[in-house]
Protein backbone atom coordinates (compact mmCIF):
# COMPACT_ATOMS: atom_id res chain seq x y z
CA UNK A 1 0.00 0.00 0.00
CA UNK A 2 1.40 3.40 -0.92
CA UNK A 3 1.78 6.24 1.54
CA UNK A 4 -0.52 8.42 -0.55
CA UNK A 5 -3.35 5.87 -0.57
CA UNK A 6 -3.01 5.36 3.19
CA UNK A 7 -2.97 9.11 3.74
CA UNK A 8 -6.05 9.54 1.54
CA UNK A 9 -7.96 6.86 3.44
CA UNK A 10 -6.93 8.26 6.81
CA UNK A 11 -8.01 11.73 5.75
CA UNK A 12 -11.40 10.41 4.71
CA UNK A 13 -11.69 8.45 7.95
CA UNK A 14 -10.94 11.57 10.01
CA UNK A 15 -13.60 13.46 8.05
CA UNK A 16 -16.16 10.72 8.69
CA UNK A 17 -15.42 10.59 12.40
CA UNK A 18 -15.39 14.38 12.73
CA UNK A 19 -18.81 14.75 11.11
CA UNK A 20 -20.17 11.89 13.19
CA UNK A 21 -18.82 13.43 16.41
CA UNK A 22 -20.34 16.84 15.60
CA UNK A 23 -23.63 15.18 14.73
CA UNK A 24 -23.71 13.15 17.96
CA UNK A 25 -22.92 16.19 20.13
CA UNK A 26 -25.80 18.10 18.51
CA UNK A 27 -28.10 15.08 18.67
CA UNK A 28 -27.55 14.46 22.36
CA UNK A 29 -27.79 18.19 23.13
CA UNK A 30 -31.56 17.73 22.69
CA UNK A 31 -31.51 16.07 26.15
CA UNK A 32 -30.85 19.56 27.59
CA UNK A 33 -34.59 20.16 27.28
CA UNK A 34 -35.14 17.73 30.15
CA UNK A 35 -32.44 19.19 32.42
CA UNK A 36 -32.16 22.34 34.51
CA UNK A 37 -29.48 23.68 32.15
CA UNK A 38 -32.01 23.80 29.34
CA UNK A 39 -34.87 25.33 31.31
CA UNK A 40 -34.61 28.53 29.27
CA UNK A 41 -35.53 26.60 26.15
CA UNK A 42 -39.14 26.29 27.26
CA UNK A 43 -39.57 30.08 27.11
CA UNK A 44 -41.63 31.56 24.31
CA UNK A 45 -39.94 33.49 21.54
CA UNK A 46 -41.29 37.04 21.68
CA UNK A 47 -45.06 37.21 21.49
CA UNK A 48 -45.45 33.95 19.55
CA UNK A 49 -46.42 30.57 20.98
CA UNK A 50 -43.24 29.03 19.57
CA UNK A 51 -40.78 28.03 22.30
CA UNK A 52 -37.03 27.59 22.20
CA UNK A 53 -37.54 23.84 22.50
CA UNK A 54 -39.69 23.68 19.36
CA UNK A 55 -37.27 25.90 17.49
CA UNK A 56 -34.39 23.66 18.60
CA UNK A 57 -36.13 20.60 17.17
CA UNK A 58 -36.63 22.20 13.76
CA UNK A 59 -33.13 23.68 13.71
CA UNK A 60 -31.54 20.33 14.59
CA UNK A 61 -33.34 18.62 11.72
CA UNK A 62 -32.20 21.36 9.34
CA UNK A 63 -28.63 21.36 10.71
CA UNK A 64 -28.37 17.58 10.31
CA UNK A 65 -29.40 17.86 6.68
CA UNK A 66 -26.96 20.75 6.20
CA UNK A 67 -24.16 18.66 7.73
CA UNK A 68 -24.92 15.88 5.26
CA UNK A 69 -24.90 18.35 2.38
CA UNK A 70 -21.55 19.75 3.53
CA UNK A 71 -20.17 16.23 3.89
CA UNK A 72 -21.23 15.41 0.35
CA UNK A 73 -19.65 18.59 -0.99
CA UNK A 74 -16.39 18.02 0.90
CA UNK A 75 -16.25 14.40 -0.24
CA UNK A 76 -16.71 15.39 -3.86
CA UNK A 77 -14.20 18.22 -3.49
CA UNK A 78 -11.70 15.79 -1.96
CA UNK A 79 -12.11 13.43 -4.94
CA UNK A 80 -11.55 16.14 -7.51
Amino acid at each position, binding site marked *: *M*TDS*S*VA*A*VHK*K*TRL*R*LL*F*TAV*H*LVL*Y*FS*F*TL*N*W*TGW*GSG*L*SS*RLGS*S*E*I*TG*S*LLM*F*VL*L*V*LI*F*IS*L*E*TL*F*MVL*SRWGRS
Partner: protein
Amino acid sequence: MNLSTLGRQLSAAMVLLFPGLGFAAGALDDVGGEQALNPTAIGMFLLFVAFTLYVTWWASKATTSSSTFYNAGGQISGAQNGMAIAGDFMSAASFLGITGLMYAGGFDGLILSLGAFGAWPVLMFLFARRVRNLGSFTFIDVISRRLDREPIRLVTAFSTIVIVIMYLIAQMVGAGKLIQLLFGLPYVVALLLVSGLVLAYVAFGGMLATTWVQIIKAGLLLFGVTLIAILLLADSGFSFSSLLGKAVDAHPKGEAILGAGVIFDDPVQILTIQVSMLFGTVGLPHILMRLFTVPDMRQAKLSAYYASLFIGYFYIALLVLGFGSIAYVAGAPEFFDAGGRLIGGSNMAAIHVATAVGGDILTGFMSAVCFATILAVVAGLTLSGAAAISHDVYAEVLKKGKPEPKTELRLTRASVLLIGLTAVLLGIAFEEENIAFIATIPMVVSASVTFPILFLSLFWSGFTTRGAIAGAVVGLVSSVVLIVLGPQVWVSVLGHAEALFPYDYPALFTMPASVLVMIWMSKADRSARGVTDRNNYAELLVESEFGEAGPEVARA
Protein backbone atom coordinates in the same frame (compact mmCIF):
# COMPACT_ATOMS: atom_id res chain seq x y z
CA MET B 1 -54.29 12.11 32.33
CA ASN B 2 -52.42 9.95 34.86
CA LEU B 3 -48.90 8.58 34.62
CA SER B 4 -49.88 4.97 33.97
CA THR B 5 -51.97 6.08 31.00
CA LEU B 6 -49.05 8.11 29.72
CA GLY B 7 -46.76 5.15 30.26
CA ARG B 8 -49.01 2.95 28.14
CA GLN B 9 -49.14 5.60 25.46
CA LEU B 10 -45.37 5.92 25.49
CA SER B 11 -45.03 2.17 25.23
CA ALA B 12 -47.46 2.10 22.33
CA ALA B 13 -45.72 4.94 20.57
CA MET B 14 -42.30 3.41 21.05
CA VAL B 15 -43.30 0.10 19.57
CA LEU B 16 -45.11 1.91 16.83
CA LEU B 17 -42.19 4.01 15.89
CA PHE B 18 -39.81 1.72 14.11
CA PRO B 19 -40.15 0.14 10.70
CA GLY B 20 -41.68 -3.21 11.09
CA LEU B 21 -43.44 -2.34 14.27
CA GLY B 22 -47.12 -1.81 14.28
CA PHE B 23 -49.42 -1.62 17.20
CA ALA B 24 -48.48 -3.69 20.19
CA ALA B 25 -51.35 -5.75 21.42
CA GLY B 26 -51.00 -4.34 24.89
CA ALA B 27 -51.01 -0.87 23.50
CA LEU B 28 -54.46 -1.34 22.11
CA ASP B 29 -56.10 -2.97 25.08
CA ASP B 30 -57.39 0.29 26.41
CA VAL B 31 -59.08 1.78 23.40
CA GLY B 32 -62.48 3.24 23.06
CA GLY B 33 -63.99 1.01 20.39
CA GLU B 34 -63.19 0.46 16.76
CA GLN B 35 -64.04 2.06 13.45
CA ALA B 36 -67.02 0.89 11.45
CA LEU B 37 -66.32 -0.83 8.11
CA ASN B 38 -64.85 1.93 5.98
CA PRO B 39 -65.71 1.49 2.27
CA THR B 40 -63.64 4.53 1.18
CA ALA B 41 -60.55 3.16 2.88
CA ILE B 42 -61.11 -0.32 1.48
CA GLY B 43 -61.66 1.04 -2.04
CA MET B 44 -58.44 3.08 -1.92
CA PHE B 45 -56.53 0.18 -0.47
CA LEU B 46 -57.75 -2.13 -3.26
CA LEU B 47 -56.48 0.39 -5.79
CA PHE B 48 -53.07 0.34 -4.10
CA VAL B 49 -53.03 -3.46 -4.06
CA ALA B 50 -54.00 -3.71 -7.73
CA PHE B 51 -51.26 -1.30 -8.75
CA THR B 52 -48.56 -2.90 -6.60
CA LEU B 53 -49.49 -6.38 -7.85
CA TYR B 54 -49.05 -5.09 -11.38
CA VAL B 55 -45.60 -3.78 -10.34
CA THR B 56 -44.82 -7.21 -8.87
CA TRP B 57 -45.81 -8.94 -12.10
CA TRP B 58 -43.51 -6.57 -14.00
CA ALA B 59 -40.68 -7.09 -11.50
CA SER B 60 -41.07 -10.87 -11.55
CA LYS B 61 -40.00 -10.94 -15.21
CA ALA B 62 -36.69 -9.33 -14.23
CA THR B 63 -36.17 -11.45 -11.12
CA THR B 64 -34.44 -14.49 -12.54
CA SER B 65 -31.34 -14.81 -10.36
CA SER B 66 -30.26 -14.46 -6.74
CA SER B 67 -28.64 -11.14 -7.56
CA THR B 68 -31.79 -9.56 -8.92
CA PHE B 69 -33.78 -11.14 -6.13
CA TYR B 70 -31.64 -9.76 -3.27
CA ASN B 71 -30.54 -6.38 -4.63
CA ALA B 72 -32.69 -5.65 -7.71
CA GLY B 73 -29.60 -6.14 -9.84
CA GLY B 74 -28.02 -3.07 -8.22
CA GLN B 75 -29.84 -0.82 -10.66
CA ILE B 76 -31.92 1.39 -8.37
CA SER B 77 -30.86 5.07 -8.44
CA GLY B 78 -29.83 6.96 -5.32
CA ALA B 79 -33.00 9.08 -5.30
CA GLN B 80 -35.24 6.04 -5.82
CA ASN B 81 -33.42 4.12 -3.12
CA GLY B 82 -33.61 7.10 -0.75
CA MET B 83 -37.36 7.16 -1.26
CA ALA B 84 -37.55 3.39 -0.73
CA ILE B 85 -35.52 3.67 2.49
CA ALA B 86 -37.86 6.40 3.63
CA GLY B 87 -40.77 4.13 2.71
CA ASP B 88 -39.22 1.35 4.74
CA PHE B 89 -38.70 3.60 7.73
CA MET B 90 -41.62 6.07 7.78
CA SER B 91 -44.05 3.50 8.99
CA ALA B 92 -47.63 3.68 10.10
CA ALA B 93 -45.84 3.47 13.41
CA SER B 94 -44.22 6.86 12.97
CA PHE B 95 -47.34 8.50 11.61
CA LEU B 96 -49.73 7.11 14.22
CA GLY B 97 -47.39 6.60 17.18
CA ILE B 98 -45.62 9.95 17.25
CA THR B 99 -48.79 11.91 16.53
CA GLY B 100 -50.49 9.92 19.30
CA LEU B 101 -47.72 10.65 21.78
CA MET B 102 -47.76 14.34 20.89
CA TYR B 103 -51.53 14.31 21.31
CA ALA B 104 -50.95 13.00 24.83
CA GLY B 105 -47.96 15.09 25.87
CA GLY B 106 -47.07 17.71 23.25
CA PHE B 107 -43.34 18.45 22.85
CA ASP B 108 -42.15 15.30 24.65
CA GLY B 109 -43.35 13.22 21.70
CA LEU B 110 -40.72 14.87 19.54
CA ILE B 111 -37.94 12.89 21.22
CA LEU B 112 -39.12 9.96 19.11
CA SER B 113 -39.04 12.06 15.93
CA LEU B 114 -35.51 13.28 16.53
CA GLY B 115 -34.37 9.86 17.67
CA ALA B 116 -35.64 8.27 14.49
CA PHE B 117 -34.26 10.99 12.24
CA GLY B 118 -30.84 11.20 13.91
CA ALA B 119 -29.75 7.82 12.58
CA TRP B 120 -29.62 8.81 8.92
CA PRO B 121 -26.67 11.22 9.00
CA VAL B 122 -24.67 8.59 10.92
CA LEU B 123 -25.55 6.00 8.30
CA MET B 124 -24.30 8.36 5.63
CA PHE B 125 -21.10 9.52 7.38
CA LEU B 126 -19.93 6.11 8.57
CA PHE B 127 -21.44 3.33 6.55
CA ALA B 128 -23.10 4.15 3.21
CA ARG B 129 -19.98 4.20 1.05
CA ARG B 130 -17.93 1.59 2.89
CA VAL B 131 -20.73 -0.93 3.26
CA ARG B 132 -21.72 -0.58 -0.40
CA ASN B 133 -18.15 -1.07 -1.56
CA LEU B 134 -17.50 -4.18 0.49
CA GLY B 135 -20.77 -6.11 0.38
CA SER B 136 -22.96 -7.85 -2.16
CA PHE B 137 -26.34 -8.63 -0.62
CA THR B 138 -26.24 -8.23 3.17
CA PHE B 139 -24.14 -6.36 5.77
CA ILE B 140 -22.78 -9.76 6.84
CA ASP B 141 -20.88 -9.87 3.53
CA VAL B 142 -19.00 -6.78 4.74
CA ILE B 143 -17.81 -8.08 8.09
CA SER B 144 -16.94 -11.52 6.74
CA ARG B 145 -14.44 -9.89 4.38
CA ARG B 146 -11.89 -9.58 7.19
CA LEU B 147 -13.19 -11.85 9.97
CA ASP B 148 -13.42 -15.65 9.98
CA ARG B 149 -16.37 -16.05 7.64
CA GLU B 150 -18.13 -19.13 9.00
CA PRO B 151 -18.43 -18.30 12.72
CA ILE B 152 -19.04 -14.61 12.12
CA ARG B 153 -21.72 -15.33 9.49
CA LEU B 154 -23.49 -17.76 11.80
CA VAL B 155 -23.45 -15.33 14.74
CA THR B 156 -24.60 -12.31 12.76
CA ALA B 157 -27.14 -14.28 10.71
CA PHE B 158 -28.58 -15.49 14.02
CA SER B 159 -28.85 -11.93 15.32
CA THR B 160 -30.43 -10.87 12.00
CA ILE B 161 -33.03 -13.61 12.26
CA VAL B 162 -33.76 -12.66 15.90
CA ILE B 163 -34.26 -9.04 14.85
CA VAL B 164 -36.45 -9.96 11.87
CA ILE B 165 -38.62 -12.46 13.77
CA MET B 166 -39.17 -10.10 16.70
CA TYR B 167 -40.08 -7.30 14.31
CA LEU B 168 -42.41 -9.58 12.43
CA ILE B 169 -44.26 -10.67 15.57
CA ALA B 170 -44.77 -7.05 16.58
CA GLN B 171 -45.68 -6.14 13.03
CA MET B 172 -48.18 -8.91 12.48
CA VAL B 173 -49.95 -8.40 15.82
CA GLY B 174 -49.90 -4.68 15.14
CA ALA B 175 -51.19 -5.15 11.60
CA GLY B 176 -54.09 -7.30 12.81
CA LYS B 177 -55.07 -4.80 15.49
CA LEU B 178 -54.59 -1.75 13.29
CA ILE B 179 -56.60 -3.16 10.39
CA GLN B 180 -59.31 -4.23 12.81
CA LEU B 181 -59.51 -0.63 13.97
CA LEU B 182 -59.21 1.10 10.63
CA PHE B 183 -61.17 -1.20 8.36
CA GLY B 184 -63.36 -3.20 10.72
CA LEU B 185 -61.90 -6.48 9.38
CA PRO B 186 -61.42 -9.54 11.65
CA TYR B 187 -57.92 -10.01 13.11
CA VAL B 188 -57.10 -13.32 11.39
CA VAL B 189 -58.40 -12.09 8.03
CA ALA B 190 -56.12 -9.07 8.36
CA LEU B 191 -53.11 -11.29 9.08
CA LEU B 192 -53.84 -13.56 6.12
CA LEU B 193 -54.34 -10.56 3.86
CA VAL B 194 -51.03 -8.95 4.89
CA SER B 195 -49.13 -12.21 4.66
CA GLY B 196 -50.62 -13.23 1.31
CA LEU B 197 -49.84 -9.90 -0.32
CA VAL B 198 -46.32 -9.74 1.10
CA LEU B 199 -45.61 -13.27 -0.12
CA ALA B 200 -46.75 -12.24 -3.58
CA TYR B 201 -44.56 -9.13 -3.59
CA VAL B 202 -41.43 -10.76 -2.22
CA ALA B 203 -41.56 -14.31 -3.58
CA PHE B 204 -42.23 -13.20 -7.15
CA GLY B 205 -40.85 -9.70 -7.35
CA GLY B 206 -37.95 -9.88 -4.86
CA MET B 207 -36.12 -6.66 -4.02
CA LEU B 208 -37.27 -4.92 -7.21
CA ALA B 209 -40.97 -5.24 -6.37
CA THR B 210 -40.31 -4.52 -2.68
CA THR B 211 -38.43 -1.35 -3.62
CA TRP B 212 -41.27 -0.04 -5.79
CA VAL B 213 -43.91 -0.92 -3.21
CA GLN B 214 -41.90 1.10 -0.68
CA ILE B 215 -41.44 4.02 -3.10
CA ILE B 216 -45.16 4.18 -3.90
CA LYS B 217 -46.09 3.95 -0.26
CA ALA B 218 -43.58 6.66 0.75
CA GLY B 219 -45.02 8.97 -1.91
CA LEU B 220 -48.57 8.39 -0.69
CA LEU B 221 -47.62 8.90 2.97
CA LEU B 222 -45.70 12.12 2.24
CA PHE B 223 -48.60 13.40 0.15
CA GLY B 224 -51.07 12.56 2.92
CA VAL B 225 -49.17 14.23 5.78
CA THR B 226 -48.44 17.26 3.61
CA LEU B 227 -52.11 17.66 2.78
CA ILE B 228 -53.18 17.36 6.42
CA ALA B 229 -50.48 19.82 7.53
CA ILE B 230 -51.52 22.35 4.86
CA LEU B 231 -55.20 22.03 5.80
CA LEU B 232 -54.37 22.48 9.50
CA LEU B 233 -52.23 25.53 8.85
CA ALA B 234 -54.75 26.98 6.40
CA ASP B 235 -57.41 26.82 9.08
CA SER B 236 -55.07 28.77 11.38
CA GLY B 237 -54.30 31.49 8.86
CA PHE B 238 -51.07 29.72 7.90
CA SER B 239 -49.69 30.65 11.32
CA PHE B 240 -48.00 27.85 13.22
CA SER B 241 -48.04 30.03 16.31
CA SER B 242 -51.81 30.33 16.04
CA LEU B 243 -52.12 26.54 15.72
CA LEU B 244 -50.01 26.14 18.85
CA GLY B 245 -52.29 28.60 20.64
CA LYS B 246 -55.33 26.45 19.81
CA ALA B 247 -53.48 23.36 21.05
CA VAL B 248 -52.58 25.07 24.35
CA ASP B 249 -56.22 26.03 24.83
CA ALA B 250 -57.45 22.49 24.13
CA HIS B 251 -54.94 20.48 26.21
CA PRO B 252 -55.45 20.03 29.96
CA LYS B 253 -51.74 20.72 30.57
CA GLY B 254 -51.98 24.08 28.79
CA GLU B 255 -48.71 25.83 28.01
CA ALA B 256 -46.64 22.97 29.45
CA ILE B 257 -47.12 21.02 26.20
CA LEU B 258 -44.86 23.50 24.38
CA GLY B 259 -41.82 22.43 26.39
CA ALA B 260 -40.32 19.28 27.88
CA GLY B 261 -41.54 17.48 30.97
CA VAL B 262 -45.18 16.47 30.47
CA ILE B 263 -44.38 12.78 29.86
CA PHE B 264 -40.66 12.43 30.67
CA ASP B 265 -38.80 13.94 33.56
CA ASP B 266 -35.62 11.83 33.66
CA PRO B 267 -32.77 12.89 31.32
CA VAL B 268 -31.24 9.41 31.58
CA GLN B 269 -34.45 7.93 30.21
CA ILE B 270 -34.20 10.37 27.30
CA LEU B 271 -30.63 9.21 26.68
CA THR B 272 -31.67 5.55 26.71
CA ILE B 273 -34.28 6.30 24.06
CA GLN B 274 -31.86 8.34 21.94
CA VAL B 275 -29.09 5.72 22.04
CA SER B 276 -31.44 2.85 21.24
CA MET B 277 -33.10 4.64 18.40
CA LEU B 278 -30.01 6.05 16.73
CA PHE B 279 -27.64 3.10 16.92
CA GLY B 280 -30.46 0.57 16.65
CA THR B 281 -31.70 2.08 13.41
CA VAL B 282 -28.22 2.31 11.89
CA GLY B 283 -27.69 -1.40 12.54
CA LEU B 284 -31.00 -2.70 11.20
CA PRO B 285 -30.25 -5.44 8.64
CA HIS B 286 -33.13 -4.63 6.29
CA ILE B 287 -32.08 -0.97 6.16
CA LEU B 288 -28.42 -1.85 5.51
CA MET B 289 -29.52 -4.31 2.81
CA ARG B 290 -30.99 -1.44 0.83
CA LEU B 291 -27.47 -0.01 0.27
CA PHE B 292 -26.73 -2.87 -2.14
CA THR B 293 -29.56 -2.06 -4.52
CA VAL B 294 -27.69 0.88 -6.08
CA PRO B 295 -24.98 0.61 -8.75
CA ASP B 296 -22.08 2.31 -6.93
CA MET B 297 -20.79 3.96 -3.78
CA ARG B 298 -21.83 7.45 -4.84
CA GLN B 299 -25.42 6.33 -5.32
CA ALA B 300 -25.27 4.61 -1.93
CA LYS B 301 -24.29 7.90 -0.29
CA LEU B 302 -27.00 9.70 -2.25
CA SER B 303 -29.49 7.10 -1.03
CA ALA B 304 -28.77 7.98 2.59
CA TYR B 305 -28.89 11.69 1.74
CA TYR B 306 -32.26 11.52 -0.02
CA ALA B 307 -33.62 9.30 2.74
CA SER B 308 -32.65 12.02 5.24
CA LEU B 309 -34.39 14.70 3.19
CA PHE B 310 -37.64 12.74 2.93
CA ILE B 311 -37.59 11.56 6.55
CA GLY B 312 -36.61 15.01 7.89
CA TYR B 313 -39.46 16.59 5.96
CA PHE B 314 -41.85 13.93 7.25
CA TYR B 315 -40.98 14.58 10.90
CA ILE B 316 -41.32 18.34 10.52
CA ALA B 317 -44.77 17.76 8.98
CA LEU B 318 -45.58 15.53 11.97
CA LEU B 319 -44.77 18.49 14.24
CA VAL B 320 -47.75 20.26 12.67
CA LEU B 321 -49.93 17.14 12.81
CA GLY B 322 -49.07 16.44 16.45
CA PHE B 323 -50.09 19.85 17.72
CA GLY B 324 -52.92 19.93 15.17
CA SER B 325 -54.32 16.73 16.66
CA ILE B 326 -54.49 18.41 20.08
CA ALA B 327 -56.11 21.52 18.63
CA TYR B 328 -58.71 19.76 16.48
CA VAL B 329 -59.38 16.43 18.22
CA ALA B 330 -59.04 17.02 21.98
CA GLY B 331 -62.15 19.16 22.29
CA ALA B 332 -64.31 17.52 19.59
CA PRO B 333 -66.96 15.19 21.07
CA GLU B 334 -67.43 13.24 17.81
CA PHE B 335 -64.04 11.58 18.36
CA PHE B 336 -64.89 10.26 21.83
CA ASP B 337 -67.08 7.36 22.91
CA ALA B 338 -69.79 7.43 25.55
CA GLY B 339 -67.20 6.77 28.26
CA GLY B 340 -65.20 9.84 27.25
CA ARG B 341 -62.36 7.80 25.72
CA LEU B 342 -60.81 8.74 22.40
CA ILE B 343 -62.14 6.27 19.81
CA GLY B 344 -59.34 3.84 18.99
CA GLY B 345 -57.07 5.29 21.70
CA SER B 346 -54.51 8.07 21.36
CA ASN B 347 -52.80 6.31 18.46
CA MET B 348 -55.87 7.09 16.36
CA ALA B 349 -55.36 10.82 16.93
CA ALA B 350 -53.63 11.08 13.51
CA ILE B 351 -56.60 9.49 11.75
CA HIS B 352 -59.05 11.66 13.68
CA VAL B 353 -57.22 14.84 12.74
CA ALA B 354 -57.42 13.74 9.09
CA THR B 355 -61.17 13.37 9.57
CA ALA B 356 -61.39 16.78 11.25
CA VAL B 357 -59.76 18.64 8.36
CA GLY B 358 -60.44 16.38 5.37
CA GLY B 359 -63.61 14.42 6.09
CA ASP B 360 -64.25 10.80 5.14
CA ILE B 361 -62.20 10.86 1.94
CA LEU B 362 -58.97 11.93 3.66
CA THR B 363 -59.69 9.47 6.50
CA GLY B 364 -60.09 6.67 3.98
CA PHE B 365 -56.96 7.71 2.15
CA MET B 366 -54.80 7.82 5.31
CA SER B 367 -56.21 4.49 6.53
CA ALA B 368 -55.32 2.91 3.19
CA VAL B 369 -51.83 4.45 3.41
CA CYS B 370 -51.36 2.93 6.88
CA PHE B 371 -52.28 -0.50 5.52
CA ALA B 372 -49.95 -0.02 2.55
CA THR B 373 -47.22 0.97 4.96
CA ILE B 374 -47.52 -2.27 6.86
CA LEU B 375 -47.22 -4.23 3.62
CA ALA B 376 -44.09 -2.32 2.57
CA VAL B 377 -42.41 -2.80 5.93
CA VAL B 378 -43.23 -6.49 6.24
CA ALA B 379 -41.97 -7.04 2.70
CA GLY B 380 -38.60 -5.47 3.57
CA LEU B 381 -38.29 -7.55 6.72
CA THR B 382 -39.25 -10.78 4.98
CA LEU B 383 -36.66 -10.20 2.28
CA SER B 384 -33.97 -9.50 4.85
CA GLY B 385 -34.80 -12.66 6.83
CA ALA B 386 -34.85 -14.79 3.67
CA ALA B 387 -31.45 -13.41 2.63
CA ALA B 388 -29.98 -14.30 6.04
CA ILE B 389 -31.16 -17.90 5.66
CA SER B 390 -30.50 -18.58 1.98
CA HIS B 391 -27.52 -16.32 1.29
CA ASP B 392 -25.64 -15.97 4.58
CA VAL B 393 -26.21 -19.47 5.95
CA TYR B 394 -26.87 -21.73 2.94
CA ALA B 395 -24.84 -20.15 0.14
CA GLU B 396 -21.93 -18.72 2.10
CA VAL B 397 -21.54 -21.16 5.00
CA LEU B 398 -22.97 -24.51 3.90
CA LYS B 399 -21.92 -24.17 0.24
CA LYS B 400 -18.70 -22.23 1.01
CA GLY B 401 -19.71 -19.32 -1.22
CA LYS B 402 -20.30 -21.50 -4.29
CA PRO B 403 -24.00 -22.40 -4.34
CA GLU B 404 -25.90 -23.68 -7.34
CA PRO B 405 -27.71 -20.46 -8.45
CA LYS B 406 -31.10 -22.03 -9.21
CA THR B 407 -31.08 -23.96 -5.96
CA GLU B 408 -30.24 -20.80 -4.03
CA LEU B 409 -33.09 -18.88 -5.68
CA ARG B 410 -35.52 -21.75 -4.96
CA LEU B 411 -34.35 -21.83 -1.34
CA THR B 412 -34.79 -18.06 -1.08
CA ARG B 413 -38.39 -18.32 -2.26
CA ALA B 414 -38.98 -21.23 0.11
CA SER B 415 -37.50 -19.12 2.94
CA VAL B 416 -39.90 -16.30 2.07
CA LEU B 417 -42.81 -18.75 2.29
CA LEU B 418 -41.52 -20.13 5.59
CA ILE B 419 -41.12 -16.65 7.09
CA GLY B 420 -44.59 -15.66 5.86
CA LEU B 421 -46.25 -18.69 7.43
CA THR B 422 -44.25 -18.24 10.64
CA ALA B 423 -45.36 -14.62 10.80
CA VAL B 424 -49.04 -15.57 10.51
CA LEU B 425 -48.77 -18.34 13.13
CA LEU B 426 -46.86 -16.13 15.57
CA GLY B 427 -49.30 -13.31 14.90
CA ILE B 428 -52.19 -15.58 15.90
CA ALA B 429 -50.28 -16.99 18.90
CA PHE B 430 -49.44 -13.55 20.26
CA GLU B 431 -52.82 -11.92 19.56
CA GLU B 432 -53.77 -11.54 23.20
CA GLU B 433 -50.24 -11.06 24.58
CA ASN B 434 -48.58 -7.86 25.67
CA ILE B 435 -45.85 -7.73 23.05
CA ALA B 436 -44.33 -4.34 23.83
CA PHE B 437 -41.14 -6.00 25.05
CA ILE B 438 -40.84 -8.06 21.85
CA ALA B 439 -40.88 -4.84 19.89
CA THR B 440 -38.10 -3.46 22.08
CA ILE B 441 -35.69 -6.33 21.44
CA PRO B 442 -34.84 -5.62 17.76
CA MET B 443 -33.68 -2.05 18.34
CA VAL B 444 -31.64 -2.91 21.42
CA VAL B 445 -30.08 -6.01 19.82
CA SER B 446 -29.34 -4.06 16.67
CA ALA B 447 -27.62 -1.30 18.71
CA SER B 448 -25.72 -3.79 20.87
CA VAL B 449 -24.72 -6.41 18.30
CA THR B 450 -24.99 -5.30 14.68
CA PHE B 451 -23.79 -1.72 15.04
CA PRO B 452 -20.65 -2.44 17.14
CA ILE B 453 -19.53 -5.31 14.88
CA LEU B 454 -20.02 -3.30 11.72
CA PHE B 455 -18.41 -0.15 13.13
CA LEU B 456 -15.34 -1.88 14.56
CA SER B 457 -14.91 -3.99 11.41
CA LEU B 458 -14.72 -0.84 9.31
CA PHE B 459 -12.88 1.52 11.64
CA TRP B 460 -10.53 -0.43 13.94
CA SER B 461 -7.54 -2.39 12.73
CA GLY B 462 -7.22 -4.43 15.92
CA PHE B 463 -10.66 -6.06 15.66
CA THR B 464 -10.67 -9.87 15.60
CA THR B 465 -13.23 -12.64 15.17
CA ARG B 466 -12.86 -13.73 18.78
CA GLY B 467 -13.58 -10.20 20.01
CA ALA B 468 -16.57 -9.87 17.66
CA ILE B 469 -18.18 -13.11 18.80
CA ALA B 470 -17.58 -12.48 22.52
CA GLY B 471 -18.99 -8.95 22.26
CA ALA B 472 -21.98 -10.11 20.21
CA VAL B 473 -22.86 -12.73 22.83
CA VAL B 474 -22.55 -10.16 25.63
CA GLY B 475 -24.62 -7.65 23.66
CA LEU B 476 -27.36 -10.16 22.87
CA VAL B 477 -27.58 -11.71 26.34
CA SER B 478 -27.36 -8.43 28.27
CA SER B 479 -30.03 -6.87 26.01
CA VAL B 480 -32.50 -9.69 26.61
CA VAL B 481 -31.75 -9.92 30.35
CA LEU B 482 -32.13 -6.17 30.98
CA ILE B 483 -35.34 -6.02 28.92
CA VAL B 484 -36.74 -8.90 31.02
CA LEU B 485 -35.72 -7.12 34.25
CA GLY B 486 -37.12 -3.81 32.96
CA PRO B 487 -40.63 -2.37 33.30
CA GLN B 488 -42.04 -3.90 30.10
CA VAL B 489 -41.57 -7.52 31.21
CA TRP B 490 -40.88 -7.48 34.96
CA VAL B 491 -43.86 -5.25 35.75
CA SER B 492 -46.24 -5.35 32.75
CA VAL B 493 -45.92 -9.07 31.87
CA LEU B 494 -44.76 -10.77 35.07
CA GLY B 495 -46.81 -8.57 37.37
CA HIS B 496 -44.13 -7.50 39.87
CA ALA B 497 -44.61 -4.21 41.68
CA GLU B 498 -41.30 -2.65 40.64
CA ALA B 499 -38.80 -3.29 37.88
CA LEU B 500 -35.29 -4.50 38.80
CA PHE B 501 -33.90 -2.39 35.97
CA PRO B 502 -35.59 1.00 35.56
CA TYR B 503 -35.40 1.59 31.80
CA ASP B 504 -37.31 0.11 28.87
CA TYR B 505 -34.46 0.54 26.39
CA PRO B 506 -31.15 -0.65 27.87
CA ALA B 507 -28.91 0.05 24.86
CA LEU B 508 -27.29 2.96 26.73
CA PHE B 509 -25.70 0.27 28.90
CA THR B 510 -25.61 -2.84 26.69
CA MET B 511 -23.97 -1.21 23.68
CA PRO B 512 -20.95 0.11 25.62
CA ALA B 513 -20.67 -3.28 27.36
CA SER B 514 -20.64 -5.05 24.01
CA VAL B 515 -18.05 -2.64 22.56
CA LEU B 516 -15.78 -2.92 25.60
CA VAL B 517 -15.84 -6.73 25.45
CA MET B 518 -15.12 -6.63 21.71
CA ILE B 519 -12.11 -4.37 22.27
CA TRP B 520 -10.82 -6.24 25.32
CA MET B 521 -11.13 -9.71 23.74
CA SER B 522 -9.60 -8.48 20.47
CA LYS B 523 -6.62 -6.99 22.29
CA ALA B 524 -6.17 -10.20 24.27
CA ASP B 525 -6.47 -12.39 21.15
CA ARG B 526 -3.07 -13.94 20.35
CA SER B 527 -4.40 -16.59 17.95
CA ALA B 528 -3.23 -17.06 14.36
CA ARG B 529 -6.73 -16.12 13.20
CA GLY B 530 -6.45 -12.89 15.17
CA VAL B 531 -3.26 -12.01 13.27
CA THR B 532 -5.03 -12.70 9.96
CA ASP B 533 -8.01 -10.56 10.98
CA ARG B 534 -5.73 -7.63 11.79
CA ASN B 535 -3.69 -8.06 8.61
CA ASN B 536 -6.88 -8.10 6.51
CA TYR B 537 -7.76 -4.61 7.65
CA ALA B 538 -5.40 -2.54 5.50
CA GLU B 539 -6.62 -3.91 2.19
CA LEU B 540 -10.23 -3.83 3.32
CA LEU B 541 -9.87 -0.21 4.37
CA VAL B 542 -8.58 0.92 0.98
CA GLU B 543 -11.22 -1.09 -0.88
CA SER B 544 -13.93 0.33 1.36
CA GLU B 545 -13.02 3.86 0.24
CA PHE B 546 -11.99 3.29 -3.38
CA GLY B 547 -14.22 0.40 -4.39
CA GLU B 548 -13.04 -2.48 -6.53
CA ALA B 549 -10.00 -0.45 -7.60
CA GLY B 550 -8.94 -0.38 -3.97
CA PRO B 551 -6.51 -3.32 -3.95
CA GLU B 552 -4.85 -2.00 -7.11
CA VAL B 553 -4.46 1.41 -5.50
CA ALA B 554 -2.98 -0.31 -2.48
CA ARG B 555 -0.48 -2.30 -4.54
CA ALA B 556 0.53 0.67 -6.70
